[in-house]
């Protein structure tokens, strides 16, 4: 069950959970301008802000998926906090400094679960980027495989044989793994 301070925020959270295009656009209108302004003031660009905002929505979605959720501040404030923590984590991972002492910048503690997701977000962003670069069939095979769909079923869905799908699955995964391991950001994140 999702609870928020206002009916509007509850509606937007439910919209996020259902990937509702219209309601997510309202979330963008509600919260993204302030995030863009803050990130631009803190060594970032609008593109960075949009990336971070998407990561924040995904992290929040994953939290909502887990079960009961109660929002104790406005959704706008909550997203602002998640985005700020994400951005500061990203800067820290890059070894970048802000133009002012970190003590003067927000780094509000979120619950452990959400904070863990934020810490993992940079790695997940890397995974998604390389996953998106795979061909459509590769993405389908791997996603179903990770969802523990049997290879036989995947073969039926793709009108193929189990032996062929097993080989394709290995090749697709190898391509993904090698692309990630070759990415300089992966090694930077491993060392943090």
């Amino acid at each position: 069950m999702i609870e928020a301070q206002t009916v509007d925020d509850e509606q937007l959270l439910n919209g996020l959970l259902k990937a509702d295009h219209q309601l997510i656009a309202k979330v963008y209108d509600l919260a993204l301008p302030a995030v863009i302004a803050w990130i631009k003031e803190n060594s970032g660009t609008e593109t960075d802000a949009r990336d971070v905002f998407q990561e924040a929505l995904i992290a929040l979605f994953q939290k909502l998926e887990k079960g009961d959720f109660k929002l104790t501040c406005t959704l706008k404030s909550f997203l602002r906090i998640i985005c700020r923590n994400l951005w500061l984590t990203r800067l820290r991972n890059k070894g970048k400094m802000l133009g002012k002492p970190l003590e003067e910048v927000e780094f509000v503690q979120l619950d452990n679960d959400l904070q863990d997701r934020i810490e993992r977000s940079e790695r997940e962003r890397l995974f998604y980027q390389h996953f998106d670069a795979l061909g459509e069939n590769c993405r389908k095979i791997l996603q179903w495989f990770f969802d523990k769909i049997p290879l036989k079923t995947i073969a039926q869905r793709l009108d193929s044989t189990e032996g062929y799908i097993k080989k394709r699955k290995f090749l697709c995964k190898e391509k993904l793994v090698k692309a990630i391991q070759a990415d300089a950001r992966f090694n930077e994140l491993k060392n943090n």
Partner: protein
Amino acid sequence: MKEAEKYEKIERYLNGQMSDAEMERFEQSMGKDAALRNDVQLHRDLAQTLKGDQVHRLRATLKEVDQKWTHAPAKKEGKVRLLRPITWLAIAATMALLVVSYFVFQPARPSHQDLFAENFAPYPMVLNQRSGTPVDSILQAAIDAYERGSFVEATQQFQRLQDLDSNNFVYRFYQGLSFLANQEAGKAISILIPLVNGKSKLKEQSQWYLALAYLQIKDF
């Protein structure tokens, strides 16, 4: 170990499909081989991140929304924005002119409340939380209450903040504005007068809201 064979072993290990003996041997191998350990961790993380149809559907929707979204220039946050004193004086002069016009021209005789309502807007929130202080949760509650227009709660939260930090003139300023927004001009005036008479960075802003407070109680 050939790559395909390695992948299959890792997957069987992560899916709990190994016998106890096989698992023990594999874990011993991981203990001696850092590269294998890292591979297992990566495979585990990939499975965790990329599983689930819902998150992929969300990502596709976010991409579509993001591509279409445009915005008006955002307000700056995180700084105390001080208008130049001349701007505040100009605003105060304009307001004085409005009041004079009311007496001289009296076209539609707006009430004090009408004038107040036309000219009052809560000053943008410029406070930020600071990391690692006990005041964080109270400050967040105060900011949220102020921003959503729950001014009664905002006055209470700003009072709690002042109890913890009596020297913080910004807390007093926002408490004063919250009283004013809640139609409690008397309480707002008692807070704003010291700010006007002092040397704080919000002196000019306090002058403006003090003028509005007097307008609210029709004391001019």
